Each structure stands twice: as C-alpha cells, then as structure tokens.
C-alpha cells in the first residue's frame, strides 16, 4: 500500500480499503476519478456530491470534501453549490438508478442549464446497493430481483440511453459514454474523466460521462463472467462514444 501510494499521490486514501464487492466496477471508476483530480491539481477545491447507491462510498477513499445527497438529487445539490461557490470544482458520482431513474429530471435540467458542473453516472445496469433490482438500464429480458422472468419491455420499456438525450443541449459541453470492462476501455475512460473535469475547470459548461461497469454481485455472475457479459451485452446496446467535446484543451496520454 505504501508503495502503491507513491504513484497515486494525495487524492486517493489507500489506507481505506474499498468496501465494494470483489470485482466491482465502481472500484475502477473511483480510482480514475481520484487520478484525474490528482493530475489536474484540484484536490483541495473539489467537492464530490455522491448519490445513494454503492457509489455513495466513493468519496471515502479520497481526500476531498463530500456531500451525500438524497437519492437522485445530486445534480440539483451541485447546482446550488456551484451557484454559491463558482470557484470550486463540483462533480456528482451517481449510479444508473440514482441518475437515470429517480434523478432523471435533475440530471437533464442540470445538463440543460449548462452551469459548469460534472456528472458521472456509473451504469452497472441495475440497483446494486438494494440487491440487484431492475434499473432503467437493465437489458431486455434480463432477470433481476424485480423482473423474475426478465425485463418485459412492454411493461417496463426499453433500456434508457441517457447521454443521447443531451445531444441537443447547448449547455452540455462534454458528453461521453465509456466502458470499464478491460484495460483498453479503462484507458479511454480515464481520458473522458479528465476531459469532463477539464471542461468544468475551463468554465465551459456542463459535462457528463457515463461508465458501463459490471456489478458481479447484482448480476449473480463470477467476476470474469460479469466483465464478459458487460463487454458483450451492455456495450452492444450502450455504445461507448464521445457525443460532444468542446474542451479546447489538448489531452495526451
């Protein structure tokens, strides 16, 4: 740990073990966010507004201030915060349920408002914390705790694609979907995290990144199978792509 700490710097608090399940995709995204904060040198002026869900723990592993908002309301909290303190860097860290089920209005209105805040949506395609229920991102016919015969799209609709809904919004300046399912996709995701925060630092406007991550526990799959499933099924429907990038900055590595 001490040794690893060298490469991570001050943001990541390695003395706190992640209490995510083994293999949980939140672990990777949490690390990527911490790395970007460290690299961008914004740790001391960054505040995380986390959602209710497994990702709510993410801030415990970083040396930054944090606010655990009510379920789904992080974007509104972030807007209130940023209004009063425009010099701070504010990002939300929300699950797909938090962000796109109960919190859809706050997210989309937040995006449309265009204040420079950043929303990260960690899409593990179900409600992890509450025990693996269907979320808006659950795939057609997927069995979950609340869809014992699989998601019936005639009752519960098709899986909801979120960044696609921001395409038309002028105030949204960086919008991307990334996957966190193998080394290559993780490297790409790291870039989007930086871009999204950079977008805020430059005061351009709203930024958003969705991450496709596996929740082995909720999927009731072994860790490798959960990753395989996400790589194959999830990424097919939720295509990773950068929808919008108005960040002037040139971003290497």
């Amino acid at each position, binding site marked *: 740990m001490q040794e690893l700490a060298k490469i991570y710097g001050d943001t990541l608090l390695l003395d706190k073990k992640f209490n995510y399940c083994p293999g949980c995709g939140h672990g990777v995204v949490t690390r990527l966010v911490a790395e970007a904060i460290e690299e961008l040198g914004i740790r001391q002026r960054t505040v995380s507004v986390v959602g209710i869900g497994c990702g709510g723990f993410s801030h415990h592993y970083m040396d930054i201030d944090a606010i*655990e908002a*009510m379920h789904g309301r992080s974007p*509104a909290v972030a*807007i209130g*915060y940023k209004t*009063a303190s425009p010099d701070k860097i504010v990002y939300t860290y929300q699950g797909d349920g938090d962000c796109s089920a109960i919190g859809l209005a706050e997210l989309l209105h937040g995006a449309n408002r265009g204040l420079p805040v950043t929303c990260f949506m960690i899409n593990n395609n179900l409600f992890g914390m509450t025990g693996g229920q269907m979320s808006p991102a659950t795939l057609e016919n997927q069995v979950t705790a609340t869809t014992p015969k699989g998601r019936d799209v005639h009752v519960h609709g098709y899986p909801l694609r979120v960044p696609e809904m921001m395409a038309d919004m002028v105030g949204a300046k960086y919008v991307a979907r990334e996957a966190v399912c193998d080394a290559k996709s993780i490297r790409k995701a790291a870039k989007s995290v930086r871009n999204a925060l950079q977008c805020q630092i430059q005061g351009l406007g709203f930024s958003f990144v969705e991450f496709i991550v596996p929740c082995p526990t909720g999927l009731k799959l072994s860790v490798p199978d959960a990753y395989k499933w996400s790589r194959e099924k999830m990424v097919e429907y939720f295509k990773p792509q950068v929808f919008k990038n108005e960040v002037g900055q040139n971003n290497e590595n």
Partner: protein
Amino acid sequence: MKSETLFLKNTQTFAEAMVRCGVRYHFAYPITPATEVMKHTAVILPEYGGRMVQMESELAVANALAGCACTGTLGATSTSGPGMALMQESISFMAAGELPCIMLDAMRVGPGDGDIVGAQSNYFQATRGGGHGDYRVIVLAPASGQEIVDLMPDAVKLAYTYRTPVLFVIDGVTCTMTESAIFPEAHDYAAGFDTSSWAYTGTADHEKRFLLTGSYTHSQGEEMNERLRAKFERIKEKEQRWESIQTEDAEVVLVGFGIHGRMGQDLVANMRAQGKKVGLIRPITLWPFPDKAFEQLPESLKSVLVVEMNHGQMLDDVRLAVNGRVPVHFLGKTGGDMPLCTLADMTAQINTLL
C-alpha cells in the same frame, strides 16, 4: 441600504427583508401566492451581487438550497403548500445535515393542488414535518409586514446558531396584503457567523469533511439522532416566542397565530372595552411551540379558544400545553371566498364561553 419605510405587498416585504438581512441566493419555482417573492428578488438580488435562480421544480429548489447551504452561504426559498410537500425530502435532509437556510410557505388552501386563497392548513406539515425520521425545523409565524421585517434578523441568527432550516409560514391572506413596514438599515447577519468549522468548502484549510445522513454505521446513525435530539431540546428551552395580551386576569384566552393572532389584538381591545375579560396568546414560533406561554394561566381562566384557518392543527399543541387544565375549544374554517373566520365569528364564539 438605509433605513426606510416601504408600502409593499407582504410577499415583497419578505423578499426585501431577507435580502437586506443577508440572503444572496434565492432558489424558487413559481406558485401562487408565493411567486411575488421571486419576482421581487429577481429584480433586487443582482443589486446585492446575488441571484434569483428559478429551478425546474420544488424538488430541485430544495436540493439546490441544500447545496448552497453546504458552502456556508445563506440561501432561501419561497413556495406554497403543494411545493412544500415536494420539499419534505430535502427539509429532512437539511435538518439531518444541519444546514441553515430560510424558507417561506405562503400558505394556500388544500388538500391536493388546492385553491390560491389563503389558509393555515400546513401547520402540521411545518411543525411535524412530512419528511423522513425524527427532526424539527424552526417555524416562525409573523402576523404583519412589520413583523416579517422584525423577525428576519432573528431568523438568520437562528438558522446559523442552530444550523437549521428556518421556515416562515404566512397565510395567503397576510401574504397578499399590502401595508407599510419600516426597514432598518440593511445588514448581512449571515456574514457575522463563522462557518469555517463545518462548511464543505474543500480540503484546502481543513481535514476532509463529508455530510452523511445515511449509509453510515448503525452507531453513527444513533449518534446523529442523539445529537439532534439534544439540539432540539435546547431550542425548545431557549427559543419559544409569543405575544401575550391581557392574559393575567382573563376568563377566556384566545389563541391564534398569523392573521388570527393579529385579529385577536382588535378582539381583545373591543371586548375589554365592553368589560369582558378576554386575553390573547399569539404564538410567534410554532416550533418550538410556546408552551411557556401557557404555564402561568390565571385562576380566573374558564376556557381557551383556538382559532385557525384550518380544521384544527395548532389545536393539538395548545391542548398539549394546556394539558387538561381548562377546556380548549376550536373555531376554524378553510376554503371558500372568505377562507377564514371573521372577527365577528370569533367574538360571537367567545361570548358563548364567557
């Protein structure tokens, strides 16, 4: 801003008062009869370097208000009953997270979406809450434009001293009334409070902080609750406010808040002029309810009459305070072209009790 007398609608008076006392951000969503407040702050806040931010809903409003409070900055909102219902989640959150702010419920008739005429039917909502868990917020019930102005510095101080939302409840009749109020010189009362010991402003000058109201260890939950319980007891002990008029020898005491309390002032004067021994208790804080006002009720007292613009809500608190010592009667109505009992109704009722 210098001291001045303004003749304003009381919603505008509310807007002026809060801005002159330090509110810099007003988050709101339109709803009659509260909308005048945001219309007014939209005009005046920029002059103070602040901003009125119209949000997409009362849910967003209340959560933006919480976010604003997290920075240590004084924010406010104004709404009416249906909007208050949607803010319950966040009010519980702010109470749990000990976040200060100023709120106004310009009370209109319910239930459901209700009518835009005035009411006092959100007494339970204000004092018992519809949010989750054991919590309270301070509730102030001014009865005139002048009292709105006079209470505002206190409201800001209470919000910061106890780190709590402070909710004004003003019935729609009083809200839409136009009258004069003397504004003292503007003063940013919020600025007098040091928030650096708790505000979530980044780790540049403090150790990592985080605001949790859930997902804690069980024992943290209990600690939070015990801390809040102790705080609420402290507030109950120290912050009860009310106005008593001629209760010392009264045979009947009228209890009313807001507009009914104000009408009670005339009522007592009229009836005393007729030699009738009537007194008035006008609660100014609804939570904490002024139990102390009822502690030394005189021997002469035969009964208490509670008058509300609802079907009997503060009635519970008055009965709890009186605790069976004398009968407590109730007179109240809501809705209709005349959504409240007139002075004549009240007088008639009291005459039956004397």
